[in-house]
């Protein structure tokens, strides 16, 4: 009976510790959310680079609009913007807009040279497109250095953030968005093209199953309102 009490007490302690851990990370995530919530809206300018095996796209100047809770729009200043599906969430604010979630500690890691805490964010709402988000949080600076998000509809994508001038707002200077791509092929009979022999470099490039979109933010105009009808 005494042994049973000891085992029960240990289990209770372990459970308490587990709950404490979860609560601790919820607190951290909430703190992070509070920081990001300072930004009600922003208009940013930047340059976008698309690196996908089957897309040849030039670097373009872009304008980005954000408004709480998760309105996000990216417009190429002159021209057509090609964004990965689910690209509306090419920003942390939209991911962090999830209101009801469970935050679990999953270890520590060094991300881009910064010590980070790995936190698994599980949305409670079953209808949410996001199934799981893994955040690499720089606790000292209260910044998200990396996020890996798994969605129901658009696969898994990863965001790496680099911060600079706007780190006090939790806004990155650079975002590298990595995502899965599907195969692309159109019959020659449709495109009516000449046969072009593939070089080794071309072949290697075509085999890449991941695509990248890099956005270098040059300016942010924060909490100054947005022009009407942007979204």
């Amino acid at each position, binding site marked *: 009976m005494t042994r049973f009490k000891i085992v029960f007490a240990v289990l209770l302690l372990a459970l308490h510790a587990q709950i404490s851990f979860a609560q601790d990370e919820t607190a951290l995530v909430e703190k992070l959310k509070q920081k990001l919530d300072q930004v009600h809206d922003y208009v940013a300018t930047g340059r976008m680079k698309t690196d996908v095996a089957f897309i040849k796209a030039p*670097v373009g100047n872009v304008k980005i609009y954000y408004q709480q809770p998760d309105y996000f729009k990216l417009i190429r200043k*002159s021209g057509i913007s*090609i964004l990965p599906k689910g690209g509306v969430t090419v920003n942390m604010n939209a991911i962090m807009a999830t209101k009801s979630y469970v935050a679990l500690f999953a270890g520590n890691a060094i991300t881009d040279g910064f010590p980070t805490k790995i936190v698994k964010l599980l949305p409670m709402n079953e209808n949410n497109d996001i199934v799981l988000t893994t955040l690499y949080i720089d606790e000292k600076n209260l910044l998200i250095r990396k996020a890996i998000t798994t969605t129901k509809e658009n696969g898994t994508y990863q965001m790496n953030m680099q911060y600079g001038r706007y780190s006090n707002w939790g806004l990155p200077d650079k975002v590298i968005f990595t995502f899965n791509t599907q195969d*692309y*092929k159109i019959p020659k009979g449709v*495109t009516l093209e000449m046969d072009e022999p593939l070089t080794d470099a071309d072949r290697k490039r075509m085999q890449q199953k991941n695509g990248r979109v890099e956005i270098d933010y040059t300016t942010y105009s924060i909490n100054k309102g947005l022009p009407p009808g942007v979204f």
Partner: protein
Amino acid sequence: MFTLLQVELYKIFKRPRTYIAFIAIAGLIGIIQLGLKLDGDAYINFVMSNAEQSFTFDGKLLNGYLVCYIILQLLLVHVPLLIALIAADMISGEANMGTLRLMLTQPVSRFEIMMVKFTAAAIYTLLLLVWMAVLALFVSMGLFGTDDLIIQKTRYLVQLSNDDVFWRYIGAFGFALLAMLTVAALGFLLSVFAENSIGPIVATISIIIFFTILSTMSIPIFQKIQPYLFTTHMVAWKEFFDLKVNADNTALKGTLQNKSQIIQSAWILVAHIVLFVGVAMFVFKRKDILT
């Protein structure tokens, strides 16, 4: 020589059949533009369905540049048939009407007559392409506006910036002129051998259709002979709408992916023109004119 050219041009533009090509092109382009104006988004969704599995496109995909590209892709396969109507009639038409012998009684060499006749056919071809460019490019730009041009190639998708497109169209139309002159030269050559117009016109059209089918079928045995068919090189105008990428896979504005291919194809077409016209002159010079 110039007077002779004027006479030949007068003869071409006096015939009602000359205007069939201009009317047909205007009608076809007008129908395509109307269709795309009314239901272009559905068409774009259909053709972009492959790429839209992974990406969303934000902007004016259906713009004047894309409409022009669609028109060229559809029409440049068929315009040779319209050119054959005139080019394959240049000598055989005269023979059929019985005016060839009369014409050769003039103090002008057979070489000059042939040169002038081919030049007249070339001017007709040029005017047809200018007409096509005005309707397909400039009218489409007016109707649909301009934006980046997104083109689907067999293995990849190309995005050309708005300010990097127009010069490519000038190059493409220039190349298309070479391709159409090759057709004109073929029709011109065949017209030397016939006494009426129907034969060389049908023969020219048949050769173009036959070679075009061989050029586009991805069957290994056909792929071996494709580089030797002039119809394979006629579609090299599309190479103007592809650009180079750097090591980071960023497209480099103002570049051409296969410049050497364009030059090589252009030379092959020029060689065909010289060969066809040269053989036509050689045969005509030695020909016993009986009509």
